[in-house]
């Protein structure tokens, strides 16, 4: 089959960072596809630097390549300079593994983890030589697939994609492959595209937008309904029961050029039960599935030896919650078979002294900055968002970090949260000021960087009903913070552009009427919108207006209890009434304990699918489940399995 390398090579001399496009990474594969095999092109719709470390993409790449009847390669959005060269020379999007044209694959699959990349998805489809609208595609064109967290509301992209996969991809990727292989062997005749899509819609977890019709009554959505009786009314997410059965990636890709998170990454668990109400990832990935501690150790040890990395990140939504984390960390740091020093990083740190203790142990070699995410400035606000960190928890952690040698601290916050008042916003400045003050007891020039992002309500969270703050309101709050921190030595304030937050908000809870907007913005050159140098707020706002759509209606309006949401025909397992109740609790400032160690709230994520939390050890991590040291021995029915040994329902964990 064809490779474009000889045509691409002269173009690479003309572009920035040509090493992004050469492939050749350790762990990469050079498949020689045979007739009848199903080809997947896994594409990350952003630059190579951001896309390469994506674990989801690497896992599926390996799983597909292990099959006899399929092969997979990778692609990333070419930067604007190379895109220009490709278009000038009539060359298409290509894989970095063998530089094969994208249209030679049967499936063009995108990983979507952020809303601002939507125009890049269209650009990649077009650059592949595939019609951007699904209705214009013929049997010879690849199927366009979406996966990743943003797929829980794929409606804005409904016109452009053939199928959307909800939840974990490990199993469903093979089920899709089987159906597409049959389609190929039947010759992909005229009209067969509709057939294969009907067959794929039967696979649990697969949503085929073209088989559904969105009905509106005036500006309000009535619902998204299947067009045929055999198409499911509600598409349920997929969940792999046991992470221990999927020790992937087995051969993590080692990039030859600079990327973000350039280190060995080992996923220690999936899911999170802390129940932070703003956090879509936590809600949609329930229940918790921990990897057996021995497997973590093997993956770390083998991975370090194979890749030559001197750093490993233990990844998850909240790694300090991994039961037995201290032992895994100690074993890794002290492993005599490591060649030279190895550092461990825990990208998501809980705010308590216990985690600082771990951090001190693992960062013996390179003590860089330490990051905490209290997310809100006051205890009241943190009860609303259910991130139950007391001010004292934070001060304790910060003090112990300063006393153990750290000088620089980073604190992450959101502004524009439900019920937020000015004292809540100013609480951010107060926390930061107090943290620097604590630092002065230990060092001459302690520093705290405060990073503030505007809050965007996400589907399948209790905050999905909340009307997002306007751009001017967010600017006003940032202004308050700027004034309050201006004169405090040691506090640096950084904030995310409220205008970008607005566009994220449009996409996050939008419906199918946004398709033409996305297409128009893309046709006007609006790609790489998550890059500040290319972000074009005016283009978006004007395009919305030109299509007769109100930004205010999509973003700033509070939803009512009975309002139909554009994603109501999709399911992450969470009961809508659980989410509504949790929203009411938020407004009442009532926090909820972690359901992993306390009674089930019947959110639906475990009970609905007959799966349970799987943890590696029966002992809750030290420091209290929410970092507050609260009493967890309240008993009750805890749906927990230890290391895959299932307990009969109704028996509590010890």
């Amino acid at each position, binding site marked *: 089959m064809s490779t474009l390398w000889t045509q691409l090579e002269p173009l690479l001399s003309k572009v920035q960072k040509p090493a992004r496009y*050469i492939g050749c990474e350790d762990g990469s594969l050079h498949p020689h596809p045979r007739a009848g095999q199903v080809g997947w092109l896994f594409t990350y719709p952003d630059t190579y630097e951001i896309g390469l470390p994506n674990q989801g993409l690497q896992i599926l790449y390996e799983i597909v390549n292990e099959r006899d009847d399929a092969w997979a390669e990778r692609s990333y959005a070419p930067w604007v300079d190379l895109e220009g060269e490709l278009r000038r020379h009539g060359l298409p999007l290509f894989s970095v593994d063998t530089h094969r044209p994208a249209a030679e694959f049967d499936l063009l699959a995108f990983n979507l983890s952020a809303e601002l990349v939507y125009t890049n998805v269209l650009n990649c489809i077009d650059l592949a030589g595939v019609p951007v609208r699904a209705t214009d595609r013929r049997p010879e064109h690849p199927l366009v697939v979406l996966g990743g967290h943003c797929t829980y509301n794929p409606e804005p992209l409904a016109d452009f994609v053939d199928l959307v996969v909800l939840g974990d991809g490990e199993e469903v990727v093979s089920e899709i492959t089987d159906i597409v292989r049959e389609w190929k062997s039947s010759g992909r005749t005229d009209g067969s595209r509709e057939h294969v899509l009907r067959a794929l819609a039967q696979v649990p977890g697969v949503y085929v937008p073209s088989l559904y019709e969105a009905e509106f009554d005036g500006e309000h959505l009535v619902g998204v309904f299947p067009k045929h009786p055999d198409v499911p009314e509600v598409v349920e997410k997929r969940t792999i029961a046991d992470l221990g059965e999927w020790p992937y990636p087995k051969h993590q890709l080692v990039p030859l050029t600079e990327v973000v998170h350039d280190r060995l990454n080992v996923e220690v668990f999936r899911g999170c039960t802390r129940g932070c109400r703003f956090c879509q990832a936590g809600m949609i990935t329930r229940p918790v599935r921990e990897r057996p501690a021995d497997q973590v150790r093997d993956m770390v040890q083998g991975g370090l030896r*194979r890749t030559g990395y*001197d750093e490993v990140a233990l990844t998850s939504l909240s790694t300090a919650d991994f039961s037995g984390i201290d032992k895994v960390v100690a074993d890794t740091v002290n492993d005599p078979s490591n060649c030279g020093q190895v550092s461990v990083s825990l990208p998501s740190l809980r705010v308590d002294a216990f985690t600082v203790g771990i951090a001190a142990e693992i960062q013996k070699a390179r003590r860089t900055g330490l990051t905490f995410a209290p997310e809100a400035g006051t205890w009241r606000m943190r009860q609303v968002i259910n991130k139950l960190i007391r001010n004292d928890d934070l001060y304790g952690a910060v003090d112990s970090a300063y006393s153990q040698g750290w000088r620089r601290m980073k604190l992450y916050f959101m502004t524009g949260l439900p019920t937020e008042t000015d004292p809540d916003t100013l609480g951010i400045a107060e926390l930061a000021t107090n943290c620097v003050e604590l630092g002065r007891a230990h060092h001459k020039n302690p520093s705290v960087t405060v990073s503030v992002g505007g809050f965007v309500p996400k589907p399948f969270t209790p905050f999905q009903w909340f009307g997002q703050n306007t751009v001017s309101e967010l600017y006003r709050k940032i202004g308050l913070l700027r004034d309050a921190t201006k004169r405090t030595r040691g506090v640096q304030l950084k904030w995310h552009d409220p205008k970008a937050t607005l566009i994220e908000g449009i996409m996050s809870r939008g419906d199918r009427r946004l398709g033409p907007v996305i297409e128009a913005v893309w046709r006007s050159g609006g790609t790489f919108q998550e890059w500040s140098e290319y972000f074009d707020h005016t283009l978006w706002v004007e395009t919305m207006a030109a299509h007769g759509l109100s930004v205010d209606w999509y973003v700033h309006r509070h939803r009512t209890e009975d309002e139909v949401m554009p994603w109501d025909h999709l399911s992450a397992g969470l009961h809508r009434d659980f989410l509504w109740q949790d929203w009411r609790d938020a407004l009442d400032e009532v926090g909820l304990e972690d359901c992993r160690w306390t009674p089930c709230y019947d959110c639906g994520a475990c009970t609905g699918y007959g799966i349970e939390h799987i943890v590696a050890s029966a002992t809750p991590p030290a420091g209290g489940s929410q970092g507050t040291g609260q009493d967890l021995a309240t008993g009750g029915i805890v749906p927990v399995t230890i290391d895959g040994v299932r307990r009969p329902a109704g028996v509590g964990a010890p």
Partner: protein
Amino acid sequence: MRLRIRFTKHGKVRFLGHRDLARIWERTLRRAELDVAYSEGFSPRPKLSFGLALSTGYESEGEYLDLDLAPSAPPPHLAALPGRLSALLPEGIDTTAVCEVSRSEPSLQQAVTSCSWLIDVVDTTVAEATDAVDRALAAPHLMHTRERKGKEVTDDLRPYLLDLTIIGPTPTGARLSAELGTQPRTLRPAELLAALDPPLSEGLVRRTHQWTTHDGARRELLPVDATSAQHDGERAS
């Protein structure tokens, strides 16, 4: 113990930058379980030093790297090392020679006095290229202005132009062979081409040798038989 390694940079990996290459070597040495010495201090780095940087996009037959092993490290089996390293390096980077060098030897940066290059020039004819080359060789000076730290600097490149020959036509131009000086500063092929009259445009460029001067004679930085471990003693001097 200090080792000197010669390696190639061919094909797709020619697009890797200097920093990329350094990181790849650090990881490769760990995977090869070579116990490299680390610098002291706040963030220790492995003690590696590379020779003259190669522009991104150029190929090479002869890149060099010096590395210090940790004092406690057992002496490696040198004869097996090139094969072992090549197997762990990306395609296009091959280790072609290894030997021990004395710590008192000048660093690679200081030792190299000139480099040999094969330079393809494009969008031209052999006749045109010959004209430009002849003019350059006949001229007593070859003045060239470049920007350096925001200031314009004019240099005479002629003393660095040790040899320049047309060795044949290519489908889109001609191939030149050049030897360019590197002391006190390095003359890069792109600068040379820009300074010619008429200037020539660069196609594929390949470094073929790096030379040092020893008792007035030009020789490579490693002896031809450098990989053979039994000659260690002779070369260490």
